[in-house]
């Protein structure tokens, strides 16, 4: 299981990476915004994407749309972990095809629950 973590703050990438390691996911890659994440995704081999929303150059919502528009990536599970807490933004992300949405600040338990739920749905569906 290869997970790509996309966030412009290295602290947050490190937090998520460590939490994932605790959950047993040791294979992670990192990118600091959508424009650097997209080539990594297009190269292949990423099974799960965790992305922030507000990033320079290419935002998380634009990355989400780009991934869903790519035939090779359209089913990739995506979890958005972001401080963007506007209702209309959450609806926008849902409509763009996000699989889960976690608002910062979050707890390890919430992240674990959302990741597990996404996997359950992917396996079921």
């Amino acid at each position, binding site marked *: 299981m290869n997970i790509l973590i996309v*966030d412009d703050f290295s602290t947050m990438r490190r937090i998520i990476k460590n939490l994932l390691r605790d959950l047993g996911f040791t294979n992670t890659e990192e990118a600091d915004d959508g424009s650097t994440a997209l080539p990594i995704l297009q190269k292949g081999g990423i099974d799960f994407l965790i992305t922030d929303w507000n990033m320079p150059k290419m935002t998380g919502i634009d990355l989400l749309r780009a991934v869903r528009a790519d035939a090779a990536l359209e089913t990739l599970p995506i979890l958005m972990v972001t*401080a963007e807490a*506007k*209702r*209309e933004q959450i609806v926008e992300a849902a409509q763009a095809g996000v699989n889960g949405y976690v*608002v910062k600040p979050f707890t390890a338990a919430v992240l674990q629950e959302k990741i597990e739920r996404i996997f359950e749905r992917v396996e079921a569906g």
Partner: protein
Amino acid sequence: MSGLTDTNSYEGYIQELSKTTELLMEKIEEGNAGDIAELIDSIKETRDRGLFTEIGKLTRALHDAISEFHIDSYLDDSDQKEVSTISDATDRLSYVMNLTDAAANRTMDMVEASLPIAQGIGDDTSKLKRDWERLGKREISYEEFGALYKDMGKFLEANEKRVTDLQQNLTNILVAQDYQDLTGQVIKRVVSLVQDVEGSLVNLVKLASNVEAVSGIESDKGDKNSKPAQEEMGIFPTKNEEFVSGQDDVDDLLSSLGF
């Protein structure tokens, strides 16, 4: 007044005054009292018009700045819905303070909870090590060996829980560092807002100096005050209906959308 010169600009105003003054000098030399009186009136009228134009520009710029940074709603307490961008920025900086304070306390709580655990492991290890060395030198009685065996069993059992607790505390310390991301974003936006305010103020000061010049008012130079603001900030939990108040709210919203 001829009206040939554009008095809507400060430069135009000066140009027109200069022309009329030249003409006035000519008429004075000719000694034409009627024309002199007419030209003096004309100079006065030009000055008034220049003053009105500059005040008009300043008023417009002030109005633009006020609406751009929502200062009007700040001044009008009856409208609580839209706070001024300045007071909004102040709230955001308070949020940064609260967040860093909470993170520091959370980290210290975890460290304080972990230190006695580490101390307990150290103390027990030292005691067992002493007995273990005595066992190695065969300086231990059969009864003491029985006690050592039991102690070792208790130590191992206790350590399982201690290690789990330590791991949990360390994870909590790690997660508490997320404030850096959140506060960084808020500060970045406040910085951009301050830059916008500065730009507007510079423009207002420039326009005000034209009014001063036309009216002949001398003011103290070098005043640097700030006010205004701009830009909507997405992050930051508020009681605003537009925002979710936490993860439970997000989950409710998503489930209402069929998630």
